């Protein structure tokens, strides 16, 4: 019921992540719209880790697990980057006209809006972010 993918800290790896989720969705008959939402949330969170999560440029690994339990999909992202809780990032000011806005915080806002729940914890020096998405 669960699937795991280990990614290197290279943004080209996002394609492999998306493919893994698409295949998982097909195997468990998860609607395309749910898979699209999940892939966007994962892309935002994992690209953030790859682009901003490390103080050095050495190789690192990011582990993503996907698991379906009943009609809920759980996605766990685990990385060994700087401790960073994305849930503490302030929401962008969505009432300001688009062109006058700061261009940060949009990705996390999207992930929060597309998922039903986001939970962050640290465990043995790793950042662990759990995304929860209801299928129905």
């Amino acid at each position, binding site marked *: 019921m669960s699937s795991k993918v280990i990614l290197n800290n290279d*943004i080209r790896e*996002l394609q492999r992540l998306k493919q893994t989720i698409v295949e998982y969705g097909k195997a468990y008959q998860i609607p395309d*719209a749910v898979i699209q939402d999940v*892939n966007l949330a994962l892309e935002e969170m994992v690209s953030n880790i790859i682009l901003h999560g490390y103080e050095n440029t050495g190789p690192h690994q990011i582990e993503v697990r996907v698991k379906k339990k009943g009609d809920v999909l759980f996605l766990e992202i685990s990385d060994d980057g700087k401790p960073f809780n994305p849930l503490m990032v302030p929401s962008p000011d969505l009432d300001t006209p688009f*062109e006058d806005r700061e261009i940060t915080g*949009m990705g996390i806002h*999207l992930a929060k809006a597309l998922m039903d729940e986001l939970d962050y914890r640290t465990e043995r020096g790793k950042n662990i972010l759990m995304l929860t998405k209801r299928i129905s």
Partner: protein
Amino acid sequence: MLKITVHEKTVGVFTVSPEGSIDTNTYTILENKIDSLLRNEATVIVFDLSAVTFISSAGIRVILKAQKALKQRKGKVVLMNLQPQVKKVFEIINVLPSLSVFASIEELDQYLDHVQRKITEKT
């Protein structure tokens, strides 16, 4: 994968039709095209999104940058043919009220005629 077709509709008005996914890996392809249009005196950039299947915040930022640059020269960004998943992303970020969205090419043409007339009246 992302393929981009650019077409100059009238002087300064460009239609940009990306095809595929505008994400962390591909947004620079779009950004480079937009930068060259901005150097090319573009005043209106029409994004025809009918063949865009996926857009991430990296893609939205390119459109935001274009809107900022065009507004300075009294131009604008126009969006057309948003697919459901793409529309949802724009709605979550509450972008649509700041941009012009057209449902069809006819609607766009009417708008462009109107802009053209305003320019002609002034000169």
